[in-house]
């Protein structure tokens, strides 16, 4: 995905971020055990052992979804990227939220190594935070949802059309939050936390 504007510092940041998200989301899906462990293989990314999806469709879904975010990330439109696990009734059970903010006015060159170094900590933290997550029922599903600061105009890019409104139901009560990892490395500020339905949430 080579773009002209990738040369700008923000483009560079966005590119690294997208790559990272792809890996991280794959790891989350692996962690939650939605698929058979054999569907993944061990790889090394940023010098950390990560999982890579072997099934082409799974890989393609994650790849296209995250890469579709690239133009919006560059514009700073994306506020959160969520990996939502929900049950057969489309009621979310657990959500992994990447809350991100990119400093749009950041001028100087992005230290790629620095940024990667910070992002690496997420990949290290993820596999060990399984204890904080909930055990999912057998036939649950998942999706990637992005929260935008404002709705992108359809005309801005073709990629926008890839994104469709979600069917997933929302929780009625504010969720419980468990932070997993935060980092703040100019120009990117990224936080990963878990959301679980609150106790007062009406049970289906």
């Amino acid at each position, binding site marked *: 995905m080579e773009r002209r504007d990738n040369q700008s510092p923000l483009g560079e940041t966005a590119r690294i971020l997208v790559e990272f998200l792809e890996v991280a989301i794959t790891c989350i899906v692996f962690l939650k055990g939605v698929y058979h462990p054999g569907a993944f293989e061990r790889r090394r990314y940023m010098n950390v052992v990560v999982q890579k999806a072997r099934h082409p469709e799974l890989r393609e879904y994650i790849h296209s979804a995250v890469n579709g975010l690239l133009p919006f990330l560059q514009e700073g439109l994306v506020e959160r990227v969520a990996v939502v696990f929900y049950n057969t009734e489309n009621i979310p059970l657990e959500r992994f939220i990447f809350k991100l903010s990119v400093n749009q006015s950041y001028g*100087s*060159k992005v230290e790629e190594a620095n940024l990667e170094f910070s992002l690496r900590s997420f990949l290290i933290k993820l596999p060990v935070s399984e204890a904080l997550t909930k055990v999912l029922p057998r036939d649950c599903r998942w999706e990637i949802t992005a929260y935008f600061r404002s709705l992108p105009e359809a005309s801005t890019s073709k990629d926008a059309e890839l994104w469709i409104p979600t069917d997933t139901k929302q929780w009625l009560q504010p969720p419980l*939050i468990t*932070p997993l990892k935060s980092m703040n490395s100019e120009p990117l500020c990224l936080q990963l936390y878990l959301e679980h339905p609150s106790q007062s949430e009406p049970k289906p």
Partner: protein
Amino acid sequence: MSFNSTRSANSGSRSKRSFNSLSSNPSSNGNNKKRKTTQKTLGVGWGSNSRSSSRSSFRNSPFSDFGSYMEVKNRKLQEQFNAEASSSSNSGSTSGKPIFQGVSIFVDGFTVPSSQELRGYMLKHGGRFENYFSRHHVTHIICSNLPDSKIKNLRSFSGGLPVVKPSWLMDSIAANKLLSWVPYQLDQIASEAHNQPKISVFFASESSLVSKDSETCVTGQIKPKLEDPSAKSGTIKETNLSESCGSMQHSEPTGREWDDSVGKNIARAVTQGPVCIERECSEGKSDKGSDVCTIGGNTGEIHDQASPSQPFVSVSSYITKRSTRPTVVEPSNWHRSTLHDPNFVENYFKSSRLHFIGTWRNRYRRRFPSFGYTSSSVNVSTRRTSIIHVDMDCFFVSVVIRKHSELQDKPVAICHSDNPRGTAEISSANYPARGYGVRAGMFLRDAKALCPHLVIFPYNFEAYEEVADQFYNILHKHCKRVQAVSCDEAFLDVTDAEVEDPQFLASVIRKEIFETTRCTASAGIAGNLLMARLATRAAKPDGQRYIPPEMVDDYLHELPIKELPGIGHVLEEKLMRRHIQTCGQLRRISKESLQKELGIKTGDMLWNYCRGIDNRLVGVIQESKSMGAEVNWGVRFNDLKDCHHFLMNLCKEVLLRLQGCAVQGRNFTLKIKKRRSDAEEPAKYMGCGDCENLSHSTTVPLATDDEDVIRRIMVQLFGSFHIDVKDIRGMGLQVSKLESTDTAKPGHERNSIRSWLTSASASTKEQHIIASLAKESANRDFGEQSIDVNQGWLSTDSTGPSVQIGTNLSNANVPLDQDSALPSIEDLDLGVVESLPPDLFAEINDMYGGKLNNMISKKKCQNVDVCNSLCSMLQGRVQVAINEVRESFGLDPDSANVISVEDKEDKYEVEKIHAEAVSGVEPSKAVISSSVPDKMDLMPSSLSQVDISVLQQLPEDLRVDVLGLLPAHRRPEGASFVALGATSKSESDKCPENQTGSINPILKKELWFGDPPEWVKKFKNSDCSVLRILADMYYKSGSTSCLSSILQRTLSDSKHFVNASSDAEEEAISCLCDLLQQYIELKIETDIEEVYVCFRLLRSRFTMRSEFVFQSYSLIYPRLQAFVRENYGGTLLISDGKD
């Protein structure tokens, strides 16, 4: 493949072995057990995943235990490596010898490039790559980052092997040869062992260094002597010295085996002086049975022994110097850049040679004020002028070594640092050193490479001043017209001198200089300044040369143009392009074409100079046109706050210089060196590297030297750069369009007011100093138990804020008072007035027709009453404190004795307090009583009228001032006496915290500003033990701004974490809540993880142990959730107990 895993694997085999030795019966049962333990340790080492596989492999493997398994594994890995290497290197290298032959690396942890890539490089270039660390196979450890624990136990980690960054390999490959690993040493280690004196350190230890100099020499020569008869003792000593200095990176080859007692003796000898060394030598003799004894303080003899080829002269003198340093220097070891040293600017200029030279002129002018005769008095006589140019030979070196005759013909250089690998620049080198090719501006490590026995000395500015003064005294004695060029260089106009022959005069002067200063000088004699200077150049070193006018043409003809003053690289290059290299060639070019090409002035200058024409007159001083300060070394910022702090210090420095020369400026230029985006880390340690130079300037209508104005201008200018502070490598502030302060008329009246302010603040300072002195003495007397006494003293401290109010008030009055005649006498701040110097006071008293004096005496009577009552209160407190002391001493066997002593101290202290209270309270009372009505029209009547956004834009110090004003302002006026009593009482009871309660709503996050953050300062003085512990932990956890690590530290450190005393509890709870709330606000948006960690710690670990924290926690918890909801739309789930 990390080091950890090998280690645990090793330990596994070790535990295995011990198990073997314990189990006595080799039954099958024992065998079973054996296998089990092996599996267990393996599990620990490799993680649970590998357990099953390892089990199966062990079942049918021929290995008896883990050790033999590892052996075989290593062997196999090596074989594989060899096989791969032979296949890949055949294709790769064409040259005979592969780069990394004999190098065997072990990669530890995460590196860029990764360990696999590095392995590939090693394969290709004939090196070895070890998968498991072994002291015997590995030659270099490659890593880019080490955890703290490994740094601390470096030796046990690395086994003494070099720990090098991966870029060493990469650069070596790029250079196609094996580079020295030394510059690539891991930064963490390099900085640890760095013996480059840090800038701030330099001056702290300067005097002690100088005083140790003689001693240094003595040991310096003893060393080779000892070395002669039995080489062993010499090396032993050296090793020991370097060990005792704690510097592990000594580059000289030193023997490893040494004996402890000798080492200690040497260390002691170094600190105790020559006598000890002598004794030590005789000890050495009795030990070794050689003829060392002859040393006995006989320097001349020693000198013969220390032949110039002895490399140990320099080495050992380092050692002594270094060993003197740590004692003085320890606490500020890390202050080497703007990041760490709050007083960086000040210290920087203190040890800057250029700064010394630059400011020397002012000093000179003060010293020889008669010197300025006007140029009109210089009659351009028909007589042939003769000018002598005198220049000291390598001034900076010869001054330092003038007292060491034995070093005169040895290569010596002056440098900040004596680290032989360092990138400090040689500042000056003497002629023997220049013979080796050592030049000023060269990196020390390069100089050391050229001349390994180069002796390095640090600057000694005091000596420079002394010699420069002697130098000028001599010049002024012989000649009335002296033009100082620099501290070691001057022109003399001897046309009218009594002595006819200038050559003779020059030789007299040189002789006298040598006799007085023990330093040589060279002189050039000619008809004008230019030729005299050129003549000196030819005369150096220690000579003189006369160029008569008829010789000028010949002399110049072959002279390379760059010898002419005023021709630098740029100009030289321009002329080179036109194939002009000598003055003779330059002469062929017409003046017009020179001027056209190079500008009118430069062209004119060149045309004149190459003909030996110089119309300048001796003694015409050029007024400096601009003044400024620039720092390009050690400038590194983390954030904007650092940068502003630095900027403010720079302002202060420039301001001092302006005031020193009594000038004010109108034009302000801020220069910034910005790291080029593609620039690498500079070769020079903490240097500026490849930079873009940016500058912005502004001109103000009225010349100023006012600190506040300049600061504001600077902040404004800085803002206009829009620059990432991390890229800043240097900053400079230049003030131009200077005007002399005396001529600036309107400034006069203002000056008198200014002096009010300064004297007021000075007097407060004085009081503070007295107070703190008294406090100290109290501390000394009462030992650790004097906390209560200190609180008693707080009443004197309480004058701080109130006097500041006074200052602010008069500050605000400045514009008013300039126009109107006089403030009414009631408006006068009597406290300030009283502390004025007597002459100023008399002046003001005259203005008011003597009323002032009456008023003050009246006030005094009232004050004494108040003070008396206050004092009795204080006395009571002191009594209490003393009683406590007595209790604490009660256990002592000679307690009676102590108490009687205490009693005496007691009376003395009380008297002191009395005096203190009188002087301390007076001004504050006066301030409150007289200033309140005035403030009414200047300050908004309530906090709600303050525009918060404006307030937040203010610089920090101003903001604090304003905030400090507001609550005081709200105090009911008129009740000043009562208010005074109440405040000092409440403040001695609690602490100044009660004020901040009202500030908090306005200034959020304020507690976390500053270094150390505000809260630390506040909590330190708090009554509540928990808060004090927290403040303590701030420092213990390495002054981090991260609350969670402070809390962690608290948990691990304080077992005695007890409940707060109940009296001040509410106060303390609100303090803690404020702290937490502000922390949440600070972090909630960017780092919810940190907030989460903090609160989980508080909840699970603190609340159970302390009721106090529990209450604070339950207070703050809803607020926390509100913040989380606002930012994340959810509730933070804080589970208890898990970890």
